[in-house]
């Protein structure tokens, strides 16, 4: 069952990602990326990471990509301003490189023994991927500290610096 979910959403993910690259209209590209996020969320859900799946939709599809659309809207692009990239024969070189790399990854993953072992012996705790399990990893309990609480704090500083940076770079008058 999980395998079929994976293949279903994985195919969709790849298809929408390719469409996102090929579309000339930026809004179409963004919409395609948004749908690819839904497929990704589906894959997460299939892996029992339901919290991550919802966060994927909430943060990426619901907030970040909306900002993308918002900005494209403000540009008010005309048709003549859309990307005029056409297919060139020299594009085949990066394409071939990508395909070779992808083939390498696929063969590496299919030969990997640790992944085989993992698939054979995987045992997930009953609350795997739930909000409480994730929050335990991050925040611990009332008298202990979670494993990733330190990194969580570090990331909060990272976001602070990103906010300050965005203001510095974009504010009209400092």
């Amino acid at each position, binding site marked *: 069952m999980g395998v079929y979910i994976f293949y279903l959403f994985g195919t969709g993910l790849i298809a929408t990602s390719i469409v996102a690259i090929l579309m000339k209209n930026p*809004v179409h590209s963004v*919409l395609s990326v948004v749908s690819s996020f839904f497929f990704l969320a589906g894959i997460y859900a299939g892996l029992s990471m339901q*919290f991550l799946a919802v966060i994927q939709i909430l943060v990426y599809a*619901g907030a970040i990509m909306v900002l993308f659309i918002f900005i494209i809207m403000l540009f008010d692009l005309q048709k003549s301003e859309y990307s005029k990239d056409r297919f060139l024969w020299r594009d085949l070189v990066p394409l071939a490189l990508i395909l070779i790399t992808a083939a390498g990854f696929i063969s590496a993953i299919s030969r990997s023994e640790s992944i085989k072992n993992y698939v054979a012996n995987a045992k997930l705790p009953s609350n795997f991927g739930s909000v409480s399990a994730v929050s335990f990893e991050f925040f611990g309990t009332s008298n202990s500290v979670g494993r990733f609480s330190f990194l969580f704090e570090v990331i909060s500083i990272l976001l602070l610096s990103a906010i300050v940076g965005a203001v510095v770079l974009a504010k009209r008058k400092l």
Partner: protein
Amino acid sequence: MVELIIWTIIKILFILFFVTLPLAGVLTVVDRRESSMIQDRIGPNRANLSGDVWDLSKRWRFLGLLHLLADGIKMIFKEDYSIKSGNRWIHTFAPILAFFPGLVILSIIPFGGNVTVFGSSTNLQIASFDSGMLLAFAFSSIAVYGITLAGWSSNNKFSLLGGVRATSQMLSYEVVLGLTLMGIFMIYGTLELNTIVQGQQSLKVDGTPDLLFGFLPKWGIFLQPFAMLLYVAAATAETKRAPFDVPEAESELVSGFFTEYGSMKMGMFLFAEYAEVVIFSMIFTTLFLGGYHVPYLYDSGFILPFGWGSLSINPTLVGFIQMLTFLLKVIIVAWGHLVIRWTLPRFRYDQVLRLGWKMLLPLALANIIITAIVLSFI
């Protein structure tokens, strides 16, 4: 498994076709009637079913509710005008995007307690989802796309302005909306809505009611009154209704993001707005008004405070009473929503954003911090 699937289908059909959509439809007319009453007008009351055409007193008007039917027929049979310039695909797709994501939220709302029918018992909630409220946030933020794209694809300055306003307003208030509810999640310790509802009216371990000051049920409205006010403000802004209806401000932007829409496509936008009102009322009821609970009514029957006695009732009957209670509460909250719309003047656009970021957001944060401090001492 089969039982689960059948129950789920029944629940989906019920909540969607017997509660949300009819209620949203009725609200479209009620909104107009109520505005007329508030403004001392007569309002829409001409649509009638039959009766003597010449004798006004014999027409069957049903309080003007027939206008719902008339409007529906009109919208469906109107010419489906599609724009010449602009992006036709997205233009058609946008109303769908605006309408349907909100309906996903229905799947996590508990609209009743445990009921037993023909020996098969179930919780009246479509999916008990561990990340509950997060799903609601996620899909209400997806609804932004429909409005944004509608504004963009129409190739009309008014639409674009409306779309830009709607996007920035909804994005801003999503943040506030999430933060206002944080206190509730902290108090009940979960994001799952049914658990929150049960936390609002539960029994202690020894079987006595768990009440505040001995008589108040532990509803969100009593534990988080401040968050409740913030939530109402943020939710009104999130549904883009007056006094926050700047995206479609008819005196400035004609009709905002759906200026270029006609027929049922426009109908879908209007309908989506009322569906959102219903859904937000449901969430409000669930989080702050004890959901499907009747005060002092527990699974086994009434247990009154101060030891005034108790009355046992058949559990299935309790389940149905709770379901009806939930619907009643939702209707009352939705009605309150309409009252707000017709009694308050519209904010200016910059005021809306300033209110969101500079006032509601810090207040919501303060609410979280205070709640956390209080909780850590209890």
